């Protein structure tokens, strides 16, 4: 078993929180993990990504080869498409629908959505709104993680436990909100697929 996940977004959008949940859950499940991330200059409002690899066998490369990612989880719709060369045939795309516009040549949203929807296995969701409705708009990333959860090699329990331990120092309410966000994401994904 080997699962390759690309996390995408813009510097500061919290993709490393998703990575941390995946890492923690994988380690607690006695799986091997490698997770490459971006530090330094590109973090400043630029495109960022993280390669997460989870396996019960030895993992060699820190980087996912092209065409071998089982899924891309993106907190921003245009950033999702930037990593398509990594996606395997029929791989899963999960993304928030809200654009982060900090460039003058940001594409028209309709064109972006049309391109995203042209892929078969896609979850294009307004995760920001879902998180906001739950009372914590900062949990957008966890909604997206929840939406991808059924395709991960990690149990819901291990992911929820990881969320609990990672957010513990921020207080019980933040933990609760993030667990709710995770569950809501999972629910939405089920609706999409059915």
């Amino acid at each position: 078993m080997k699962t390759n996940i690309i996390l995408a977004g813009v510097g500061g959008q919290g993709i490393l929180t998703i990575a941390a949940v995946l890492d923690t859950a994988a380690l607690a499940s006695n799986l091997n993990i490698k997770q490459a991330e971006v530090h330094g200059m590109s973090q400043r409002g630029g495109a960022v990504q993280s390669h997460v690899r989870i396996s019960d066998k030895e993992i060699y490369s820190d980087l996912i080869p092209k065409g071998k990612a089982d899924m891309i989880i993106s907190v921003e719709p245009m950033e999702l498409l930037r990593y398509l060369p990594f996606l395997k045939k029929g791989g899963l795309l999960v993304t928030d629908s809200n654009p982060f516009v900090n460039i003058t040549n940001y594409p028209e949203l309709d064109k972006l959505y049309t391109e995203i929807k042209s892929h078969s296995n896609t979850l294009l969701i307004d995760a920001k709104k879902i998180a906001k409705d739950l009372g914590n708009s900062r949990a957008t990333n966890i909604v997206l993680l929840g939406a991808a959860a059924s395709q991960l090699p990690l149990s819901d329990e291990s992911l929820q436990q990881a969320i609990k331990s990672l957010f513990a120092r921020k207080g019980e309410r933040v933990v609760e909100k993030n667990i709710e966000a995770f569950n809501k994401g999972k629910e939405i994904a089920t609706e999409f697929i059915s």
Partner: protein
Amino acid sequence: MKKLLLGNEALAQGAIDAGISGVYAYPGTPSTEITEYIQRSKTAKELNIHSQWSVNEKTAMEAALGMSYAGKRAMTVMKHVGLNVAADVFMNMSVSGINGGLVVVVADDPSMHSSQNEQDSRYYGKFAMIPILEPSTQQECYEITKYAFDLSEKMGLPIMIRLVTRLSHSRAGIEIGNRIAQNKISLPKNPTQFQLIPMHARGRYQHLVDIQSDNRESSENSCFNKNIEGKDTSMGIIAAGIAYNYLMENYEDGECPYPILKVSQYPLPKTRIKNLFDNCEKILVLEDGYPFIEEIISDFLGENRNVIGRLSGHVNRVGELDPDSIKKALGFEVEITESIPKVVSGRPPELCVGCAHRDLFDAINVLGKEDSNQQVFGDIGCYALGVLDPFASINTLIDMGASITMAKGAADAGIHPAIAIIGDSTFTHSGMTGLLDAVIEDTSITVVISDNSTIAMTGAQDSAASGRIVEICKGIGVDEDHLILITPLHKNLQKNIDLIRDEINHKGVSVIIAQRPCVQLPKEKKDKLKKLKKISLN
């Protein structure tokens, strides 16, 4: 349970467990997290391990050498270009040798993710004639660091550990071993060892040359250099450091048919390489960075042995390696995967909303429109983004401190206005000496120190300049009438333009300190800054 650590953090944990008494470093991507890990470590605090940032890489390495002189284990950490700054002490301390174990960690940045070049530090290691260690996994980062300190004391030499960005900034689960105690103070047995006057230095250099065979033997027997058998001898593969991972990634369960030599310790193990040569028809060299190994083992006249790699053009010569880039050299078809849809725009990094550098560039750009002769010499830091649109304010960007000195040289050549823009920490790192050059000749340059009171680009480390810049400038001899403090805010734009224009028109050195803290600074750091001595200007 295993501990989830970046390659950098695993290395830092290895250093703590190897009994270091201090780490000396200046921040620089991709090396920064090594020192930060030790700064955060409770164990390191309890053990009183020194971990405060140094002013630059040279002061850091010299302090580490001083700790080694005292008999204790010390580590110095930098990015690849940082080693250029520390090259003076680096080249001489391999001649003196060390007392307590001394490890130099250098993180290279192939593909220049956050750097101005992709120089390969292994050349420096070879230049200094010291062993180099190049881990391939996060676990090896941990193990190899402990090994490095033992090796250092065994050989009496500083040891280089070379990292690359992808190893530094990738996490994995790490098994942590035991920690050994720190060394006690013990001065060098040979009183002339560290006295490199020519008559002693000649002896030390001869000694360094003489022990090269020991270095090579250590490599031959190193548990980090590994021969892996393979049935298909039409090709043998030498894979160094992280390149080994990219090689194995291309084979299901790592079942590579070719014989492999994994290299993680240098000087190159000659006998092992000879064996590979004797048994294989050709040799493929996979290494991240420059074609260092390939160049050494290639037949210069190209008549005898077939060696391929980055130099021969079988693997990309520039940029980092990855599992895909080496496919062709391994004889695999490169599969065509989906391309990036046309609708996707580039998203380069940018200055934060509300960043003080923005307001400074706005003023500089207005002045540039007033006088098209204006040249702006930039420096290393977030403000390097001023090269890009929408600002496009900066004409040059070369190395730490070059803004002031290049502005001086250009002014000497007749350029006016010649403006240098340098950050506060870059100023104390390498700008002060250049400013003294300009003061001595009272060169007509305008130095703008964009003081956000932190080392922002690498994650808001404390700046050595905080609370000291004015006194430093006065001490260097800047005329106080032309030492100006401004606050870069939009509401001050016109006032700041007028103040800078006045200083441009001054025939001589002016220093303008544009001061406003980085917007990314956490609250506790902002509060700490407030407690610092208030900047005073008469």
